[in-house]
Structure formats: C-alpha cells, structure tokens
C-alpha cells in the first residue's frame, strides 16, 4: 500500500475529475491518493465521482482557506 499525492487546485472542470480518474487508474487496490483541491465545483464533484467508481473517501479536511485535502482509498 502506497500513498500518492495529486494537486488539482489549478484545474477546472472537467480536468479536475479527469486528472483524478487518470491518477487513480495508475494505482493498485488499497493505495491511497491524497487530492488537494479547491472548494466549490471540485470539492463537490471529485469525492462524489470517485465513490461512484468504487473507491472509498477516507477523509476530507480543510488545510487552508479554500483548499481541501481529500484522502481516497483505491477500490
């Protein structure tokens, strides 16, 4: 089990969840992906779409102002 990081704070729709999905595809089951993203559209959509695709969201935490860290376990 490894932990990976992905920063999508500079991305916009649809690249926020496109990049997340492409990154998750590279991982093995059980690996952790920590996605750093902005509130609003990314925070609303990224966790929702990764869950729909059979992954687990372990934690969502506010790390500064409008920036969040979403911890995903690849399913």
């Amino acid at each position, binding site marked *: 089990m490894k932990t990976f990081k992905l920063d999508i704070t*500079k*991305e*916009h*729709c*649809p*690249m926020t*969840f*496109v990049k*997340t*999905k*492409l990154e998750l595809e590279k991982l093995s089951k059980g690996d952790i992906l920590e996605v750093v993203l902005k509130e609003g559209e990314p925070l609303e959509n990224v966790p929702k*779409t990764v869950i*729909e*695709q059979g992954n687990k969201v372990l934690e969502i935490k506010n790390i500064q102002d409008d920036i969040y860290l979403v911890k995903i376990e690849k399913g």
Partner: protein
Amino acid sequence: MADKKKISIVLFSGDFDKAIAAFTIASGAAAVNYDVNMFFTFWGLNVIKKIKHRNAIGKGLLARTFNFLMGGFKNLPLSRLNFAGLSPKLMTNLMRKRNVATLEELINAAIQLNVNLYACEMSINILGLKKDDFIPEVKEILGVAKFLNLSEGGEILFI
C-alpha cells in the same frame, strides 16, 4: 456492465469552440464512467486528421483543394469572430493563462479515458480520404446503421 450509462456525440462541426464543447463533455463523461462514443462527420473530420495543419490530402483535385482549405486540427476556426484564424490562437492562450484545458489537452484526456472515436464513411468518401489520414486512435469508419447500433440505449448529442 449492462447498466453503464452511455453518451454518443456527433461532431458535425469543425469549429474550434464546438470541438471544445464536444471534447469537454466527452472527457468529463468518460471520467465519471460513461461509455462515450464520438462520431466525426463532415467538417468535424478536420479535428481528427493526422496532419494537423493545412494539407492537400485526398483523392482527386477537388477533394485535395477542399481538404487544403479546411485544414486540420491547427486550423479550426472560431464559429464567430474568427478574424482569419487569429481568434482561436488568442483563445488558446487565454485558456492556458486561466488554467482551463485546451482543445489538445481535452482530446488527449478523451483518448486516455478510452473514448471511442469513429469517422463517418459517407463524408470520408466525399472528401476522398482514407482511414490512414486520421489519427490512429480512430477505431473505425462507419455508417448510420452501425452508429445507431452503437449509440442505442444512450443519449445522443449533435454538435
């Protein structure tokens, strides 16, 4: 997975802005696990030509002239305010500056997410082109019947 959602996009237009719309929806849908088919017909074929710049490809003088005038991926005009091809370049710069995915990035994302690309048999015939004139990711050249067959049970968008 019989219950997988599906969307099929017909790109009839070779306009820069419309191609962006089509590829934004396609890559977004593929990222949220839709089956995505894209059908390129007529001017839309310019987006998936292998040679990205103006080039006189095709069979016959008239077809070659048409293909040269239409150009490829790098010559897509903006549907309004094109200013002889200047606007699409300005728009791409603006998109880069604002960190919005450019058309090239969207197309690459769509390909990486296994969006199915198909080219229309009839328009290819008119323009005297062959499968080899298109990017290798184009899966097949097909007609209406196959298109209907592939898009059955899903949404269809015509852009």
